[in-house]
């Protein structure tokens, strides 16, 4: 008697579960997977609006002759390869310093270093654009200190424009990642560190032998998040350098936006380029997870 009743109860619970998760799951289906599929279809078409017609893989072959697109891929990967490792290592070092129990003003330091995260992406891009402007305070300082004879046009020279974007990214995101590491460190028994100290381990040894291995899941999480974020970089490229000079610092997302909404709209070609980013993100995430698994 009790068995059938229990089954109906668990069936009822099963149904309740589906009702609870359905709105969220449906929205992800409709707002992520459906558009993604439509982007794939769109990427084989050319033209505007109702006049769109199929064009085979033309959009995909065109990409590899598009020098601006190739430049945008190079730029995005340059930001990725330089900025993400520096930021994560820096965040790890800061987190392990701030995890020290004997440190004074710990809360104050943590808040100050995390503070840049409270600014909007557009806002900090505009702040850095102003700081590094020809008449900005950085140039003023460098001239006054006698390092430069005259203001240097940071934002209109190819390499300095790219480097300013990296500096800005480091400023905005290091504290953010540091908080993840600090949270991860909370889960590590502090006595391990004390024991290592008694055994005579140096700070560097403790860092590489204890902190890094134990934080590996968190490091993996932040690496995937920052890779994903950097590959989609948009606000900084638009508002800090406007992709310039002459597209030398433009990112992939920025170029796709221009191709869809700024120039004469070419949705088919833009969709093809966006699909390439999708594949790149998937490959990189897969590789990072593989590397993350290996050392276990």
């Amino acid at each position: 008697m009790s068995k059938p009743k229990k089954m109906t109860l668990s069936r009822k619970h099963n149904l309740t579960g589906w009702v609870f998760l359905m709105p969220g799951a449906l929205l992800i289906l409709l707002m992520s997977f459906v558009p993604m599929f439509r982007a794939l279809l769109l990427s084989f078409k050319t033209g505007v609006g109702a006049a769109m017609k199929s064009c085979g893989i033309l959009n995909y072959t065109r990409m590899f002759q598009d020098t601006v697109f190739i430049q945008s891929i190079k730029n995005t990967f340059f930001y990725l390869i330089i900025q993400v490792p520096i930021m994560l290592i820096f965040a790890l070092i800061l987190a392990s310093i701030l995890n020290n129990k004997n440190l004074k003003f710990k809360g104050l330091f943590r808040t100050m270093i995390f503070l840049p995260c409270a600014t909007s992406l557009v806002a900090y891009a505009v702040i850095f654009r102003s700081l590094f402007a020809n008449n900005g305070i950085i140039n003023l300082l460098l001239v006054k200190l006698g390092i430069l004879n005259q203001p240097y046009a940071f934002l209109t020279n190819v390499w300095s424009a790219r480097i300013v974007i990296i500096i800005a990214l480091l400023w905005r995101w290091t504290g953010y990642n540091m908080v993840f590491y600090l949270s991860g460190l909370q889960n590590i028994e502090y006595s391990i560190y004390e024991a290592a100290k008694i055994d005579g381990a140096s700070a560097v040894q403790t860092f590489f032998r204890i902190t890094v291995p134990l934080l590996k899941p968190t490091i993996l999480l932040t690496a995937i998040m920052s890779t994903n974020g950097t590959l989609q970089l948009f606000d900084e490229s638009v508002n800090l350098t406007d992709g310039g000079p002459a597209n030398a610092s433009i990112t992939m997302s920025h170029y796709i936006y221009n191709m869809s909404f700024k120039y004469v709209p070419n949705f088919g070609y833009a969709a093809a380029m966006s699909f390439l980013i999708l594949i790149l993100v998937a490959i990189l995430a897969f590789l990072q997870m593989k590397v993350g698994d290996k050392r276990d």
Partner: protein
Amino acid sequence: MYVFLIIVSFISVFPLYWMVSAATNKSAEVISGRLIPGTYFAENLKNLLANQNVGGAFVNSVKYSVILTLVSLVVSSLAGYGFEIYHDKVKDAVMSVILLAMMVPFVATMIPLFQMFSTAGWLNTTIGFILPTISTPFLIMMFRQSARSFPHDIMEAARIDGLSEIRIFFQMFIPTMRSTYAAAMTITFMNAWNSYLWPKVIMTDATSQTMPMVVANLTQGYVTDYGMLMLAVLICTLPTAIVFFCLQNAFAEGITGAVK
């Protein structure tokens, strides 16, 4: 070590200090390198209001962000709770598919979404702003993780007392998971307030623009009025800074739960 921390803190804080001081000075003074707060705040505000519809954009940003945050928290936490508490093989499989959506970059869905939304007549509307990001894999994952620590005996006791499943969620789960909700709220509100690409795509009318869009508009001219610009940046930064300060500790706590 302290020297290192002080240098890093200084670099972190200086651009923000410069922003605040520039917002209260004349543009010419900002260019000449003045770093002390001045008395030009009111004048900058007057110029800014005359130049851009800051009031309207601020109201828009508040409206879009608050509505998105509230709806998103309910929908995502309900889903995360549903996935964990009533989990079975099929639901776990659906969850892994949802996690795949995390890999989908926004530019890859932006154009079809724009087409779908303009057909539906959702350009320049609140629903158009919020719909793509109400339900996010990250939030669902976060709430699913935290639902794992929701004690089962309490649920059983509540069921015996005759509480319905939905009331268990609203009356017991939500109050218990306050720190997760606070962290999720901080993340969602900041993302909503700061979002720039999507509003730039669908908010085509000047009257439906958001604060980040207004700030970006101000940099378009040939001559930049730094005092006015930094005041706009300051106004754009204040709400997220306030939310961040109020929920800072809860945020750290909630993140700790999520990365466990």
